[in-house]
């Protein structure tokens, strides 16, 4: 009996490690092959404090958590700018360094580790509940898994988790929607590491030892395998993965009757082959992202009937259609003259080495109007967007938004102050649904902060409902409400442009910078797009577009700036610009 409970204890401890790794690997997309090393922080904290200082286990949990939290945060600081292959190497090195250092410190038992933790059983207890037999451990370990699951679930399946997924898909696009990806990435690494350390404390206590071998690279790989096997970004998958894979050991030893070392080797071989087989056949793991065990079983039964995720190539129908009166270009320009200045750029310059990308640019964007930047390829139009939103800091010059100086802000902070851009190459979050994409655009969500997630759950729930309504409103505005649950990877190009517009609109930003909103989409979609942009501007928002299609510019723009080689060389209505032979030649080349 005890022996089976012991296996159950092991499964549950492994599961809690897999849960916290999944938060990091599956949700945030940060590959870590050093999760066991963070567990070692906890395990060694317990081992050292219990054997050398008679500290009860409950304090070891707290101290281990804090140590690993800080260490994880520091690693994240280095990791966040690195690409996946460097991240793998970084965490690999971290694992080796940490275990290497532990095994050279005599106070931590050197290469033998600390091996007599359970010699002081009175310290391994909670509130008088002493833990010596496997059955004693079961209850505290169940609490461990429950707490880890709750924390990970709360973080992963919330507005905070949406930012994590956004960072995983495209960090720059996430920042462009005003999200502080820096804070989020550091926090998730720190929390995940801290939780791993807590599980490490239990693991060492349960085993009675904390040694370099126990927390070595093989253990990190085992946890990694559990997560991949169970399914990334899916916590029930991690539980299932731990259950299935960890049960291999008792199966091989009790049922097949292998001896201990042979059972271990065969088990590792099976892990390895499963990883290879799974990445080939079912890369999303046993339970894919967004599914539950129940939903998979149900789908199996009703297979053939459901036809999900098929995006058809129908032009959108508009739920909101503003009547945009036909106004002549001259009238529109007159209106522009009178409109209030919202954004003003003065003397903006930027050079990269010897290449001048922008030279002494002066321009204004006005409320309720559409301004166009036109010019030949390479004139620096997109660079202007980068300079305005702070993706690139200008060398000289100032940008003022409603009287406030916003020069040189970061991408996310300028988005929060009301200056949001779209991307020429769309940059939707591919694996997220259309609705999730737009949800990420909504500002001021309390659920994006860890503190309110746990301290003020009611507020988070209420706000989340409002956020959903807002996102649906904008999705309907662009006519994509029927595709709310469809991952954007399966949309047509025109549809992605619409969703990206909805995402930008959801930020409710004062100024919208739209980078080629109508390029590359089907002719029949262009008119829809134009109407949408006009409707936005009619609502009183300030719009600036970069566009090559002169027809689009003519239909939309109240005022245009003509750019050549990083300089603004002319401004006025489109007709004024195109009637100049010199500009026409600069734009179209010699005819």
């Amino acid at each position: 009996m005890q022996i089976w409970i012991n296996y159950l204890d092991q499964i549950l401890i492994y599961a809690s490690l897999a849960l916290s790794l999944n938060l990091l690997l599956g949700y945030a997309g940060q590959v870590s092959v050093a999760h066991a090393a963070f567990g070692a922080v906890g395990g060694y904290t317990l081992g050292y404090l219990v054997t050398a200082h008679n500290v009860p286990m409950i304090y070891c949990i707290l101290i281990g958590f804090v140590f690993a939290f800080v260490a994880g945060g520091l690693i994240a600081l280095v990791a966040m700018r690195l690409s996946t292959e460097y991240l793998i190497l970084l965490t690999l090195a971290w694992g080796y360094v940490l275990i290497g250092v532990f095994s050279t410190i005599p106070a931590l038992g050197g290469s033998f580790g600390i091996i007599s933790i359970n010699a002081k059983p009175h310290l391994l207890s909670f509130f008088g509940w002493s833990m010596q037999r496997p059955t004693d451990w079961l209850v505290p370990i169940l609490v461990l898994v429950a707490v880890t699951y709750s924390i990970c679930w709360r973080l992963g399946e919330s507005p905070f988790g949406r930012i994590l997924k956004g960072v995983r898909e495209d960090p720059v696009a996430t920042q462009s929607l005003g999200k502080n990806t820096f804070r989020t990435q550091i926090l998730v690494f720190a929390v995940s590491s801290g939780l791993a350390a807590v599980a490490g404390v239990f693991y060492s206590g349960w085993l009675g030892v904390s040694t370099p071998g126990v927390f070595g690279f093989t253990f990190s790989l085992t946890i990694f395998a559990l997560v991949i096997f169970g399914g990334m970004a899916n916590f029930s998958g991690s539980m299932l993965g731990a259950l299935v894979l960890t049960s291999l050991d008792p199966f091989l030893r009790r049922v097949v009757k292998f001896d201990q070392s042979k059972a271990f080797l065969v088990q590792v071989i099976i892990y390895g082959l499963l990883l290879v087989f799974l990445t080939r056949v079912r890369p999303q793991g046993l339970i894919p992202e967004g599914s539950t065990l129940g939903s998979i079983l149900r789908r199996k039964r009703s297979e053939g009937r459901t036809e999900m995720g098929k995006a058809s190539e129908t032009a959108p129908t508009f739920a909101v259609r503003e009547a945009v009166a036909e106004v002549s270009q001259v009238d529109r320009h007159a209106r522009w003259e009178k409109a209030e200045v919202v954004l003003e750029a003065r003397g903006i310059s930027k050079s990269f080495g010897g290449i001048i990308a922008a030279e002494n640019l002066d321009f204004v964007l006005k409320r309720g109007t559409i301004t166009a930047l036109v010019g030949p390829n390479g004139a620096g139009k997109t660079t202007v967007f980068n300079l305005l939103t702070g993706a690139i800091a200008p060398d000289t010059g100032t940008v003022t938004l409603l009287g406030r100086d916003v020069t040189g802000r970061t991408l996310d902070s300028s988005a929060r102050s009301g200056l949001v851009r779209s991307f020429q190459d769309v940059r939707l979050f591919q694996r997220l649904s259309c609705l999730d994409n737009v949800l990420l655009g909504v500002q001021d969500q309390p659920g994006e902060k860890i503190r309110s997630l746990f301290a003020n759950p009611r507020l988070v729930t209420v706000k989340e409902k409002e956020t959903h309504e807002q996102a649906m409103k904008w999705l309907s505005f662009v006519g994509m409400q029927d595709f709310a649950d469809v991952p954007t990877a399966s949309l047509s190009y025109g549809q992605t442009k619409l969703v990206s517009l909805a995402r930008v609109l959801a930020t409710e930003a004062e100024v919208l910078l739209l980078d080629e909103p109508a390029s590359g989409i089907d002719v029949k979609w262009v008119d829809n797009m134009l109407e949408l942009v006009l409707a936005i501007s009619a609502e009183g928002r300030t719009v600036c577009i970069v566009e090559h299609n002169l027809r689009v510019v003519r239909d939309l723009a109240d005022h245009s700036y003509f750019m050549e080689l990083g300089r603004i060389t002319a401004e006025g209505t489109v007709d004024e610009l195109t009637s100049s032979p010199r500009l026409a030649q600069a734009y179209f080349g010699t005819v």
Partner: protein
Amino acid sequence: MLAITIGREIFAQLTMNGIFRGASYGLIGAGFALILGVTGRFHFAYGFTYTLAAYLAYTFHFRGTPFGPFSDGFPFIVSGILAILFTIVVGVAIEKYIYRPIAQGAGATALLAVFVAALGIGIAGQSTIALLWSQQSQGFYDKDQIVKKSAWHIWKVTFENLDVFQFVTSLTLIVIFSVVLTKTSLGRQMKATRVNPDLATIIGINANRIYLVCFGIGSGFVAVSAIWYGLQYTVNPDMGARPVTTAFVVAFLAGTASSPIRIFMTGIVLSLLEQWSSMFIQTRWTQTLVFVVLFVYLINKSAKDTLWGKRIISIVTLQGIRG
């Protein structure tokens, strides 16, 4: 100065050790850099191919075929060559039958998917070796005594003839490889594929074939290193972990797009650091030193990318270039 107070002999001895050991780091590092740089596969199973090569050479030499003229084992040289060829076949097969289909299925997340598969192959392969041959170390030597281990003394420095053979083969392979890379059409095709596989395909390069060639060359390099190592020490299932992980570090420090000569030199410098450091810190710390160096490098790289470069590039260029 410190070196002098500690003793010139020790310093010279450590330098010699560093150069010999560094040559193998350099060779393995160059193979790994070639694979990662050109094919983009994080070939974590590289350590397994290392171990496999040593075990194959050992088995061919001591066991041979079940019957026939080689039932007592192949001659030493033949065993070595057979082992290298087999390892090359295994490396190429891993790319062709495992990595390539996985990468094609995974699209944008190919790097992670291939890494996971490579991990799987690595741990399964190593455990299979332990299961088939036992977890104990096996003594590996030329039983016909043609390649006999002998100690050489120059001044007060001692080393083995095998050290020299290992160094010379590593250096020769690196030189031949860099000539191939710069002077031949195949080399130019590899470099073109490294820069942009899609574009290379458009101009008529068979990128898939180039990938296989890279895996072949890389596996050959690792096999040569492994066999020398096995001869000098022993063969055991864990033997691949340490040298290959160090070689990963070498490849990243030098840059995966660097010339083989540069990677080779980086290997020697890192190895010298490792050896010399044992004059100042305890030997058990030196093993960690390599990773500390890597750590410092990555922190520096991350800081540089934050302040300059990467952030801008990722915004200005088209989608898909992350880091």
